[in-house]
């Protein structure tokens, strides 16, 4: 099954093929580029810690950080490190684990088709031993400890712990130094078998490549592999109350001045596809109008020295949770937070003019077009959308259609009765 999706504004096309084993393959040809980029991702991240293995009755619970641990370990094969093979081919491979996704990718500037086989093969061939699992604990411990010294990471996870009472998004993606000690090779195999079936994965390729050749090669790769269908994976997320866990979370670190993040919990969750996309776009525009660099509030706070260029705001929208986060460095985080709350109330009485909406919308269109310069950015964006059932071009198509009335009513609904939390890191 093959279809071509086109977008006139971007002047791009995307070719989608679904293989017999359920794997979705997408190719976005980019003429004239030196690089090729492939990303192979599974719909499995640090949040998927409790699940029912297809065919089993009892739920399985895994130590925090296992998805990320598995990502590290797939790079080691029986014959040695995958890095060596890519390095011979002149490609640089990497991977990341997020709350909802684990993705493996490489950038090549030649030998692309060989690299693609290597990618499919190493992600498709787990090899764990007690010894290699033990060795990785030292490396990942240093990774966790490194992030503990990073104030922006700390202020972020402290905020998530303030926003969420039960949802696993409050836990560190890499787990804790203690939790990863419990990980064994059998657990890794179990997670692998559950989440790395091709039907739970997606492959995206971009660059100056031959689409037919890519698709044929991937089909050939899987032709002698077991294509038995997998049953549904049941993921278990604890129910998350409407209320935040803590309205204020404070911590101390060796920072020259305070850092803060203000979070608003999205209480309208459970959507995917277009309704979720519309909400994401509306929130992106809304935040730009509320605290973007051209907004009255941003300018006021900047001129009073309460914020600087470190200040930013964004919305994260997933199927089962969502939040707005804004923050940066500030000499007086409490005052900033207070001004944001007051501005929200003011705007309920005196909304923005339509001209402001039009300008911000233009800016967002430009931003999305600009994103199509960078192969890596396109690939990562693609993966972040696809498991929410949102296509790569859907964003710009819906964006062009959104109008001011929708924005106004969205604003009023989002902030009607909001739940927020503030995380502050103070100098020690």
């Amino acid at each position, binding site marked *: 099954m093959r279809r071509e999706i086109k977008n006139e*504004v*971007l*002047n791009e096309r995307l070719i989608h093929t679904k293989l017999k084993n359920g794997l979705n393959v997408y190719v976005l040809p*980019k*003429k*004239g580029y*030196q*690089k090729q980029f492939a990303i192979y991702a599974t719909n499995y991240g640090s949040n998927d810690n409790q699940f029912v293995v297809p065919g089993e009755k009892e739920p399985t619970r895994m130590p925090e950080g296992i998805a990320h641990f598995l990502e590290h370990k797939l790079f080691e094969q029986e014959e040695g*490190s995958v*890095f*060596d093979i*890519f*390095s*011979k081919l*002149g*490609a*640089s*491979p990497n991977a990341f684990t997020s709350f909802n996704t684990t993705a493996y990718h490489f*950038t090549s*500037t030649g030998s692309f088709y060989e690299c693609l086989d290597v990618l499919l093969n190493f992600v498709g061939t787990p090899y764990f031993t007690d010894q290699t699992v033990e060795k990785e*604990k*030292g*490396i*990942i411990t*240093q*990774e966790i*400890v*490194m992030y*503990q*010294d*990073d*104030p922006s990471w700390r202020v972020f996870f402290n905020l998530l712990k303030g926003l969420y009472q039960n949802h696993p998004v409050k836990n560190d993606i890499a787990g804790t130094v203690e939790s990863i000690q419990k990980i064994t090779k059998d657990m890794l195999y179990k997670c692998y078998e559950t989440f790395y079936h091709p039907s739970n994965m997606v492959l995206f390729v971009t660059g100056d490549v031959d689409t037919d050749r890519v698709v044929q090669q991937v089909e050939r790769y899987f032709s002698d592999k077991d294509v038995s269908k997998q049953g549904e994976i049941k993921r278990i997320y604890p129910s998350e109350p409407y209320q935040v866990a803590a309205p204020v979370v404070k911590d101390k*670190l*060796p*920072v*020259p*001045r305070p*850092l803060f993040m203000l979070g608003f919990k999205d209480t309208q969750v459970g959507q995917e596809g277009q309704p979720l996309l519309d909400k994401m776009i509306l929130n992106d525009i809304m935040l730009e109008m509320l605290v*973007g*660099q*051209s907004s*009255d509030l941003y*300018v006021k706070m*900047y*001129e009073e*020295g309460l914020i*600087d*260029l*470190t200040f930013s705001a964004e919305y994260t929208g997933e199927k089962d949770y969502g939040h707005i986060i804004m923050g940066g*460095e500030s000499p007086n985080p409490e005052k900033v937070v207070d001004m944001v709350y007051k501005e929200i109330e003011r705007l309920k009485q005196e909304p923005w003019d339509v001209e402001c909406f039009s*300008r911000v919308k*233009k*800016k967002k269109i*430009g931003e999305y*077009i*600009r994103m*199509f*310069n*960078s192969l890596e950015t396109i690939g990562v964006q693609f993966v972040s959308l696809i498991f929410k059932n949102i296509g790569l071009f859907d964003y710009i198509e819906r964006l062009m259609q959104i109008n001011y009335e929708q924005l106004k009513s969205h604003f009023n609904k989002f902030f009607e009765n909001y739940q927020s939390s503030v995380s502050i890191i103070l100098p*020690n």
Partner: protein
Amino acid sequence: MRIENMDMGKGITLWVLPTKKFKTVTISFCFHRDLNEDYTYNALIPAVLKRGCEGFETLKDIERHLESLYGALFDVGVQKKGERQVLRFSMEVVNDDYLAEQGILAQAFYFLNRVINRPVLENGGFKKSYVAQEKENLKNRIKSLVNDKIQYSLERCAQEMCKGEKYSRYVFGNINELENLDDARLYSVYCDVTQSSPLDVFVVGDIDPAKVRLLLERSLSMERKQVRTIPKTTYKKLQVVPKTVTEEMDVNQGKLAMGFRTNINATDKEYFPLLVYSSILGGGPHSKLFINVREKASLAYYAFARLEKFKGLMFIGAGIDFDKYEQTVNIIMEQLDAVAKGHITQQEFEGAINALVTSLKGSMDQPSQLIDYYLGNSVMDSDITVEELIERIKGVTVDQVVEVSDRIKLDTIYFLRNRKRGYVIHEKRN
């Protein structure tokens, strides 16, 4: 892809790189300055200019204008290129071909000209409130370097290593200098920047060079005087007594930064084998540091080596447990020793060359990286294209790599560790 280099007179050079592949056009104005005692003033100037100009006097005016240009990216900054400071004003706009409106590119040129040449003035100087706010922001920016422990440790290593040399100056300036900053002098330094500093203008995108030249000529209203010659970066220092510097802070992970003098800069013929040397040592997963410090000894999550091509420095960094300091330093020095003895596997050698080639080719897909590469050429008075550099790297032999290892001298080991007795800096010469 071929860059066109046009002399516009009065010390202004226009670099145009026409390419169909980008959907945007990137413009970057780069003023070259010596990294002299004016460095804090230089660092502040772009931030003050960014606040407002004739026609767009406030932050809000500027932002709204950018939004109406389909979210044009406007950014300013300072960069250190050896012992030179570059003041940058850049813009990235969506190519007119993708939009219903035309003329956005032209607007970008006129806008940048206003920012650089028509600042908001008050009594013959910059607007006081803008200077005061941006002084504060810059002060905070200098202080917050410590929030990024990897960058902090590398910067501190370089400062300790190059004490007494211009290179030790931090690109964003100095806190004390900022506190005692003289407003009148700030304005006169600014005049000197626009009147007498060599200026490169880079333009990358799907554009016609002749048209760009015309746009630049028409939009630029800069009064130019005698253009300064900037001294070259000194980079040779063979007599080094290695020193160790330890700094204590409330941290969970120790940060090791080792600084070396390579005595080679990007215009020397040894530069090509040096690139390969550094990549074999710590340029990625194929490298000796990755394999021996991380994969075999499990000591670190990151361990790398990288070059500074203007001043001829090499830095090695690793994040480790505090009590693994000696073991890690020993393993690292063993790797340097191994390269010097020619213990380089085929895998390491090829991996290094491949990694360099891939990253250079990849830089051609990124407008900002292309500009940075050619800005480097401008600083070094070099005209080697990315394609030529790739060919030179491919021609490097193992023997040449072994040979350059002779020139590389350990200068400073810097270690950031947890606090034992309070915040003190220990310095030990050994």
